[in-house]
């Protein structure tokens, strides 16, 4: 019995310690801003591998999710004879929730796990250590561009996701099921507010991007440098990022749309 309590206490301490370590790590990364001349090409390269290479999965998922929303929305709304509200339904769902959240989940699976594995392998093969011995700080050279790349690319990806999703919904609703396209766009425009919906969605995705990239690089940097360690770090990245995104989404939604 007492042992169980002790184990619980130990777990608690470990959790707090790892929070502290990751915070310290984040501080170390953010403090060391590389010189623009050196940092910019590195950042561009990371935006390419983190953002551009995730584009395909984001676009395809966005298209299908938008089309499914169109179909489902139509069947539900046509019961009330208000299928013209389909545009507003699709746009609000995508812009407020699905855009940022699904993009973040895809990002964690596609780019986050790759970041963790890459950094973990660099650690296991002593590349980070040798960089340090060459007088190059791996936090600045390796970690920082990856963190910022996640921060910059997530809102872009989420916006593209939403736009493609709305287009997919229009494809189904207007082109296929025959909703009048004037009321499709008109209803959408009268109910979607730029600041309250679109910008709040962008803020959400900025937060998610930062958190996902932070978790991914921290797990990579902190992993046990063995093959088992890297694989468990990669799993942790995906699990923790997904949980963090969903939890934070609730908090952010409550703050932004909660009306209290």
């Amino acid at each position, binding site marked *: 019995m007492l042992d169980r309590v002790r184990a619980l206490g130990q777990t608690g301490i470990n959790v707090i310690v790892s929070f502290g370590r990751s915070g310290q790590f984040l501080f170390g990364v953010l403090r060391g801003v590389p010189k623009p001349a*050196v940092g910019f090409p590195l950042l561009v390269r990371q935006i390419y591998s983190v953002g551009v290479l995730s584009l395909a999965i984001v676009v395809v998922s966005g298209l299908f999710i938008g089309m499914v929303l169109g179909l489902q929305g139509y069947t539900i709304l046509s019961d009330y004879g208000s299928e013209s509200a389909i545009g507003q339904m699709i746009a609000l769902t995508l812009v407020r929730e699905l855009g940022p959240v699904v993009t973040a989940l895809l990002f964690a699976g596609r780019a986050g796990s790759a970041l963790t594995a890459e950094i973990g*392998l660099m650690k296991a*093969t*002593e*590349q980070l*250590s*040798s960089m*340090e*011995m*060459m*007088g*190059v*700080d791996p936090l600045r*050279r390796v970690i920082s561009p990856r963190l910022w790349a996640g921060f910059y690319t997530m809102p872009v990806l989420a916006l593209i996701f939403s736009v493609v999703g709305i287009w997919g919904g229009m494809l189904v609703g207007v082109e296929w099921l025959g909703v009048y396209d004037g009321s499709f766009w008109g209803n959408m425009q009268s109910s979607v507010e730029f600041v309250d919906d679109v910008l709040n969605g962008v803020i959400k995705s900025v937060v998610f991007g930062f958190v996902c990239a932070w978790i991914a690089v921290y797990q990579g940097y902190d992993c046990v440098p063995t093959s088992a360690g890297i694989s468990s770090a990669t799993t942790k990245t995906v699990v923790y990022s997904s949980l963090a995104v969903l939890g934070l989404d609730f908090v952010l939604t409550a703050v932004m749309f909660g009306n209290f």
Partner: protein
Amino acid sequence: MGSSAYISLENVVFSRSGRRIFDGISLDIPRGKVTAIMGPSGTGKTTLLKLIGGQLRPDSGSIRVDGHEVPRLKRTALYALRQKMGMLFQSGALFTDLSVFENVAFPIRVHTNLPEDMIRDIVLMKLEAVGLRGARDLMPSELSGGMTRRVALARSIALDPELIMYDEPFTGQDPIAMGVLVKLIRDLNSSMGLTSVLVSHDVTESLSICHFACIIADGKVIGQGTPEELRAHESERVQQFLQGQPDGPVPFHYPAEDATTDFGLGRKA
């Protein structure tokens, strides 16, 4: 001590996750010579190199490199000092996404503003020194183990360091590759006059190239001197290590409880 010691460790104590790895170790590494640090696996030889490079901090004691007290250096000063150090890692630690040429060029690009054609000349000179000028366009994954280490060596001497540390350079190498490395280490030392620290448990190779050697076991220095002095050392442990005897002061058995109780035989008694 005096000016002849490039690195000097005094009473260094270091422990990791509750285990004491160094228990008051003192060591002088002379300037411009090859010093071998030998010892059984797991005695923290690599840790010693990391302490010298400032990647780890000791619990107590002093580590001086070229007059600088490493554990007390500020970040920028430490990074500046590291530019005078080269380190050859056990695995080579080449950057897998860069070609051989770019790997060697990396430290030059980061620390200097030399024009591209000068970087090219320097890199090719360094690759020539290790006999791999023709392999400049290969990727690290296309290299053999011995070649990887030679490229890594070229990279660690790219900035003409004063000190170079070799971490287990001979492990897992075939006799030819080993011979090449032995020759390279000796040539680099004599032609560039750099201080070399060699961590290894390959007794024959190490003793054949070093000017000084020291043997570490159980967190202490158990013997040091020139190779001849060590061969004539009276300590049993030094002799056991040098001659590779399976049993002796360092026991064959890992500490365990009495065998009869462990096998469940002595319980009735």
